[in-house]
């Protein structure tokens, strides 16, 4: 948002200097206003460019390190941004960015991204994905790991504070599971994800992450 403001100011300055015409000034001001207020918008409008740089305009990032955020439930999205802002969820990249997002903007961003359609990923290791399916649907009974689908939905669609997992980059899901296991990520309010991840092996995590990327969420 800050960057957008600078750009529009630069565009505006020469016009102002070159013309005493009121109509041009009004047009320019209108342009300035629209450029300065990309967030004072309806949920259907394109979001904050700070977000789209990594997560894409439709919330389906193409870089595996950045999560797909399309189709995340409003409740979950809102909590994550709030947690990033308070460094309750710690991320070197997202932490500082989140502090630039005003509280009043979070609601609009959440509404916008919740309406975007999640695009599923491509499975590169079918055997691994097949193992992941077993974990996702049945859990790991020997270690009392519940089936992921119990909370996150059979198709990975998620609900409320249980995030949509479907189609997520495998490496991102895997990193989050590891972070829960190693207590690097501690913002699961009920401490349940940490407890579950602690019961999983690294192989389990890779398998289930590979399967999740294939899910469509519907």
């Amino acid at each position: 948002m800050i960057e957008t403001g600078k750009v529009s100011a630069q565009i505006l300055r020469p016009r102002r200097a070159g013309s005493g015409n009121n109509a041009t000034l009004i047009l320019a001001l209108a342009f300035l206003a629209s450029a300065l207020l990309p967030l004072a918008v309806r949920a259907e409008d394109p979001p904050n460019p700070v977000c789209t740089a990594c997560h894409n305009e439709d919330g389906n990032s193409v870089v595996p390190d950045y999560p797909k955020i399309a189709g995340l439930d409003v409740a979950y999205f809102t909590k994550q941004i709030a947690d990033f802002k308070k460094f309750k969820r710690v991320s070197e990249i997202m932490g500082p960015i989140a502090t630039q997002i005003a509280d009043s903007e979070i609601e609009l961003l959440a509404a916008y991204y919740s309406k975007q359609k999640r695009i599923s990923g491509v499975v590169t290791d079918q055997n691994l994905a097949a193992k992941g399916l077993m974990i996702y649907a049945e859990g790991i009974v020997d270690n009392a790991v519940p089936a992921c689908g119990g909370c996150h939905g059979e198709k990975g669609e998620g609900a409320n504070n249980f995030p949509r997992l479907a189609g997520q980059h495998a490496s991102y899901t895997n990193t989050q599971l590891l972070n829960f296991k190693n207590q690097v990520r501690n913002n699961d309010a009920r401490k349940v994800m940490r407890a579950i991840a602690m019961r999983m092996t690294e192989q389990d995590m890779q398998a289930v992450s590979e399967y999740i990327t294939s899910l469509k969420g519907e």
Partner: protein
Amino acid sequence: MRALLFFALALLPASAVLADTPAMVNQGIGSKGYVWNRLTPERAEAVRKKGDVALGQEAYRGCRGCHKQDAFGRVDGIYPRLTGQYASVIIKQLTDIRAGLRLNPKMEPFISFDAITVDEIADIAAFLSQATTIKENGKGPGDQLALGESVYVQKGCVKCHGSRGEGNGEKLYPALAAQHYSYLLREMELIKTMARGNSHPDMVTSLREVSPNDMEAMADFLSRLPDRRQSVAKAPGK
């Protein structure tokens, strides 16, 4: 003297912390002053709340990973079916785990004070007690059902759990009918060895007199009894 006082003061906060973590201490069967149906403060609170079925269905989402969407558990008995159990019994079992009475390490993270509120326990109990699942439960081999029934009667199980395994919600006796065979067998074994933690002492005494084969027969017999609500429907006079 001063050293002693210092020592006592140093101990004070430590014991206060321990008192806050009831799950760490087994106060269950075998411990001094154990009362199987002691009304813990939390259970009293949960019972007092009027559980909400719709909210319970929502909160139950956190249980589905093991007990499944239809609350039918697994037919291999690794996780029990929960549908149709009395709300009072579900509340007792859940709050007993949190109170360090029933020992269930598998379930602990999902029933911890972080994971679930007492309101949610009351709601989930309300939801499960009215939930119906019409499905085949896990059963035993079926070759000793007459023996199973006679052991069930002779050992006096019928007095509390009823002739149709229907239990008694008011008295906190669980319904056993149509529960998965392997689960019934496993829990009987845990009760017998006092590893379940929150059992009625008479259960331990009775089960110690039952041979492994008779126990299998009894579990099989119980697994084949119809769901308690079907029993009631068939015998309106009762």
